[in-house]
């Protein structure tokens, strides 16, 4: 490695990105907007009003349940009607009632209660079903004159949080950093290959390791800035007081973090460096910028699905577990969760493993990427 050439390569990459305003916006502003939007949706999302229709086909034995069920539902802010079965079905069908609870004629001999929803929104209906179930338990318990014990929730790590973004924040921060750095490196290295500058560069004394290192340093710098912005945004809260007629507001998502933000930064940075090499590597297989984008479903979506961003890794089918083990993003997400939620420090073995794996992946891909830069091209 010749430091002078490395410096030239680094500065060139920086100069190029600095002039490219759309890319800068993509790097710095898009992740902030998207995490902000996601947080807003999760935190401020309205639970739609639930309305229930209780249909009693069971006569007096049904009324024993229907009465307390009705009061339990109303206690949970649910509007309750008690129509005939046919009009209840019609109401669920046209959406004017969200759930119909049908107590069957054979209720006293063990017949099952039917809960009817229209089936268009499984997630929403699952939560409605939960409300109905809870009311049913409360209703039945009070019908037999009992009382349910309250549940006290404690967690081993951190404090139980009602903040819906808390479990997602570490994963989202990791994913966005990975995604945007990959896209930018892939496209810009592809331009280097197709624009003839790589060929020309290879006709100079530059080595391919210097090229990869120069790119890693250049994009690494921007990844560093991006991660710093994103983490400050996600973890910080800045209260702006009311000025005159303008109401006060706060900037930043204020996600609680148990450990050191610097450790979180280290995890994301290692991941981003790996994304630089991945971009260089995959640009070998692309001829156009569109094809770099076409790699997203092949390379990034599986990582998104298999790295615990949305679904906990432990809940994935066991046949997919070996794939989970080789996803770099998985280690970053896990590492970030260790830092955010568990408050892990450098002495935590689980976090050490994540850091080591991410560092090894970054180095490995850098070597692989440099071998895709051959003097003997085309």
């Amino acid at each position: 490695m010749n430091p002078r050439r490395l410096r030239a390569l680094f500065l060139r990459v920086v100069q190029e990105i600095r002039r490219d305003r759309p890319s800068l916006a993509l790097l710095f502003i898009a992740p902030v907007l998207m995490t902000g939007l996601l947080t807003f949706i999760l935190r401020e999302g309205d639970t739609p009003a639930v309305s229930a229709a209780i249909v009693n086909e069971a006569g007096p034995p049904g009324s024993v349940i229907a009465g307390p069920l009705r009061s339990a539902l109303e206690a949970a802010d649910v509007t309750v009607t008690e129509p005939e079965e046919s009009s209840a079905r019609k109401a669920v069908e046209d959406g004017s009632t969200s759930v119909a609870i049908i107590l069957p004629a054979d209720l006293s001999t063990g017949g099952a209660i039917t809960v009817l929803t229209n089936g268009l929104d499984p997630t929403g209906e699952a939560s409605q079903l939960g409300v109905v179930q809870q009311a049913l338990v409360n209703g039945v318990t009070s019908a037999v004159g009992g009382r349910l014990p309250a549940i006290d929730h404690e967690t081993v790590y951190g404090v139980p949080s009602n903040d819906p973004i808390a479990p997602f924040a570490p994963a989202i921060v990791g994913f966005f950093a990975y995604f945007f750095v990959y896209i930018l490196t892939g496209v810009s290295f592809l331009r280097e290959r197709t624009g003839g500058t790589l060929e020309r560069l290879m006709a100079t004394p530059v080595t391919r390791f210097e090229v990869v290192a120069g790119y890693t340093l250049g994009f690494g710098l921007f990844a560093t800035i991006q991660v710093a912005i994103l983490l400050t945004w996600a973890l910080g809260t800045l209260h702006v007081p009311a000025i005159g007629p303008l109401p006060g507001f706060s900037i930043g998502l204020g996600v609680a973090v148990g450990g050191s933000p610097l450790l979180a930064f280290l995890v994301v940075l290692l991941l981003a460096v790996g994304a630089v090499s991945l971009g260089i590597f995959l640009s070998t297989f692309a001829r156009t910028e569109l094809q770099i984008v076409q790699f997203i479903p092949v390379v990034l979506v599986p990582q998104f699905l298999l790295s615990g961003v949305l679904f906990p890794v432990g809940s994935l089918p066991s046949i997919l577990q070996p794939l989970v083990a080789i996803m770099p993003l998985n280690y970053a997400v896990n590492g970030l969760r260790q830092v955010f939620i568990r408050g892990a420090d450098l002495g935590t073995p689980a976090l050490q493993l994540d850091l080591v794996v991410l560092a090894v992946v970054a180095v490995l891909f850098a070597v692989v990427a440099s071998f895709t830069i051959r003097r003997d091209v085309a």
Partner: protein
Amino acid sequence: MSPVGTATATPPPGLVPAVRAVDLVKAFGPLRAVDGVAFDLAPGRIFGLLGPNGSGKTTLIRLLTGMAHATAGRAEVLGVAMPSRANLGRIGYMTQSDGIYPALTVAENVRFFAAVYGVDTDAATRDVLALVDLSDRMTSVAGTLSGGQRRRLSLACALVHRPPILFLDEPTVGIDPLLRVQFWGHFRSLAADGTTLIVSSHVMDEADRCDELLFMRAGRVIARGTGADLRRDAGTDDLEQAFLWFAGETEAAR
């Protein structure tokens, strides 16, 4: 097969040739893009590599610059076997595509290549931009330049380290006649300073500006000599006719 024509500038024994090809072969599967090329090129002259598209000019240049590995044979530049990274510092290579960074300014492009060659001084950048007549566009972003200006910038990037050997792959493609005359003016002054130039082209009317011509066809050098020599041997006044005559001769000799 030995090239027809008179070898006028084979260096005398004892003098290291600027460029030497020894039975060079480059095969892509069954296709032999370069098929047994052998020559010595003397320093300080302009050599024209002439032939139709697909005749192997670019592949030959890539072998000589060490950008591709030969299937068989040997390429030497200034007495050093290629590929040799150390030797690349003494070679300038202007690729067929512009090979410049459109987001950088003219000066930044030149400075980048200068730094890569280890000669990044303001003077080097200024001098080479003056040479290609781009001094007034130093701060322009390269992507905003006209096609001809981009070609000149590309030439400047290949020249900035003042290499003794310069390979130019179709340097005048797509530029207007006026600029073409300017380019050949640059080439001539470089040669006068002792630089060896290897210029590929498929435009025969550029040939007379070269000191010596190598006709290429189907991966082989089918003739070599000055423009006048080749015309005389072919018995025609027209270089294009001469090329066709040599091509026919080669076919007949097979």
